[in-house]
């Protein structure tokens, strides 16, 4: 935060020539904007911080800080909510979803990036729809179908449901990535006698590895955080961490508030580890959405 607050007043070296003029004109506005940003961050800090402090507090009623600090809520939460098993399920689900969505999505992204064929626009729209629809809307019919075939309530149903937004996401993030690879490299490989298989495995795969890594991590973050679809399809032994957190929160009163907070902190730290890994490989704006709206004809 310290680096943020220092900026608006003093000029930053190495900025373009247009900067001093604008600063003179829009100075109060700049303060207002930075004030809003800092207010937002303070609230964010309060939200995350209050969960963190509460999870270590012995008792916390009508005071600024808890009366004493303890770490017992963590062991409580771990035992009460069988967190070991829940985390195991979360990892299984996310890794399966990542692997399968890459396996399905990357070849499709390749075709969409390289080829033009009749119905390409329609294919784009169909792949875009699961991202544009709220998960609850298609989640309820999807869960109904999965229950009908006896898949929901188990790990397989959770994985299948989570694949629905993940595969289009892989396709939409990988397509621009493949487009920027020079097609002449593939042509050269073809000329040297490589088949489709070896072009993919020995030419494209090494070039695509950074992009695949990036979209794999993005899918991982989204799957671990995906609440609605997992919630609709999970059975008692296939809950992921975020769903278990929701259940423990909506059954508040039965359990101590602090052990729910401890569980929330475990979830947060898991997400933060993933986030730190993700930010090493991808631009923050990519975490939000890398949707290519206008397919080239």
């Amino acid at each position, binding site marked *: 935060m310290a680096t943020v607050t220092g900026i608006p007043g003093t000029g930053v070296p190495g900025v373009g020539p*247009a900067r001093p003029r604008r600063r003179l004109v829009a100075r109060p506005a700049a303060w207002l904007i930075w004030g809003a940003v800092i207010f937002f961050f303070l609230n964010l800090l*309060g939200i995350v911080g209050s969960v963190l402090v509460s999870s270590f507090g012995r008792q916390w009623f009508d005071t600024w800080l808890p009366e004493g600090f303890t770490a017992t809520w963590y062991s409580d939460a771990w035992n009460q909510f069988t967190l070991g098993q829940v985390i195991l399920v979360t990892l299984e689900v996310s890794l399966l979803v990542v692997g399968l969505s890459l396996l399905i999505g990357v070849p499709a992204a390749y075709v969409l990036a390289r080829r033009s064929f009749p119905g390409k626009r329609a294919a784009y729209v169909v792949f875009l729809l699961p991202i544009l629809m709220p998960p609850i809307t298609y989640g309820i019919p999807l869960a109904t179908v999965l229950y009908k075939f006896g898949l929901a309530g188990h790990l397989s149903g959770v994985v299948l449901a989570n694949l629905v937004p993940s595969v289009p996401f892989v396709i939409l993030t990988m397509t621009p990535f493949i487009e920027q690879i020079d097609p002449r490299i593939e042509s050269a490989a073809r000329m040297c006698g490589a088949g489709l298989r070896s072009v993919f495995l020995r030419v494209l795969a090494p070039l695509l590895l950074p992009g695949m890594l990036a979209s794999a991590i993005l899918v991982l973050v989204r799957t671990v955080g995906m609440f*609605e679809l997992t919630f609709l399809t999970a059975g008692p032994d296939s809950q992921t961490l975020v769903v278990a957190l929701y259940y423990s929160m909506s059954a508040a009163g039965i359990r101590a508030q602090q052990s729910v907070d401890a569980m929330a902190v475990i979830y947060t730290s898991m997400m933060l580890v993933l986030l730190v890994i993700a*930010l090493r490989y991808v631009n923050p*704006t990519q975490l939000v959405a890398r949707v290519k709206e206008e397919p080239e004809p």
Partner: protein
Amino acid sequence: MSVTTPPAATTRPSQSPRVHWRHRLAERGVDGQLWLLAPAVLFVVLLFLYPFFYGLGLSFQPTEGGPFSDYARFFGDAYQRGTIWTTLGLALPAALLNVLASVPIAYRMRGRFRGKRLVTILLVVPITLGTVLTAQGLLNFLGPTGWFNRVLLALHLTDEPVRLVHNYWGVFFSLIITGFPFAFLLVLSYLSGIDPTLERAAATLGAGWWQRFRAVTLPLLMPGLATTFCLTFVLAFSVFPSAVLVGNPAGETRVISIAAYQAAYEQYDYPYASAIAMVMGFIELVIISVVLLARTRLYTGSSGGKG
């Protein structure tokens, strides 16, 4: 979609017409490589389109009454019908505020400055935290004995704690906390896609700060803003966990997804739940298509943002 390549092995007596036919398909861009698309198409059809149409069909086969009776039941019941307005009353202001607040902030922050990466990383945090954790944090932070009310009391801005959770505002704040960073990062990426020399050219012609923004940057940014609004609106429209946890799920924040969930998992009336889900999807698509239709009237040229 139209993967119409014939299977490789066909036993036909004459070779020439088959080759001819294949060539004609290949000229239009249809050949064996399109099979790579097959798993994804199969997947979308089986897991997205089939359930969707299954749900659509199910919604016309209610447990009792004619084909439209579940829809009539939904729209006839004021308690159920009201969920539409509740949802829109939450999602539209939240999405609008998120987009409108991001514009000036992103406009100010689009240049390079020290700590920009830190700010963007900090903004990504609430997106990854997700709605459930945000709800838990809001309950602690904005609750009657939380830090926020303590600060207000200490500053003598209010005499008694302000009630901010378990009502409309709790859900609204959770939509802002998770939605604003999302909108901001998108707007920032659209803004940095706009060529800065355009604005400098306007400056040499004597345009002031407001004129440059109004006549140069904003028209180029508008398509991106429309897209951002759509994506933020989708997020806000499907609000479910926070409406249950920090809202008042029986009263003023009974959003449409709660109605659909209750029909499916509390009354086990899947046709009715599907009907509600279809109404929900329909309303959302109507609003999105209105915005996207308006977007086509805007300039979307090469020098604009990525939108």
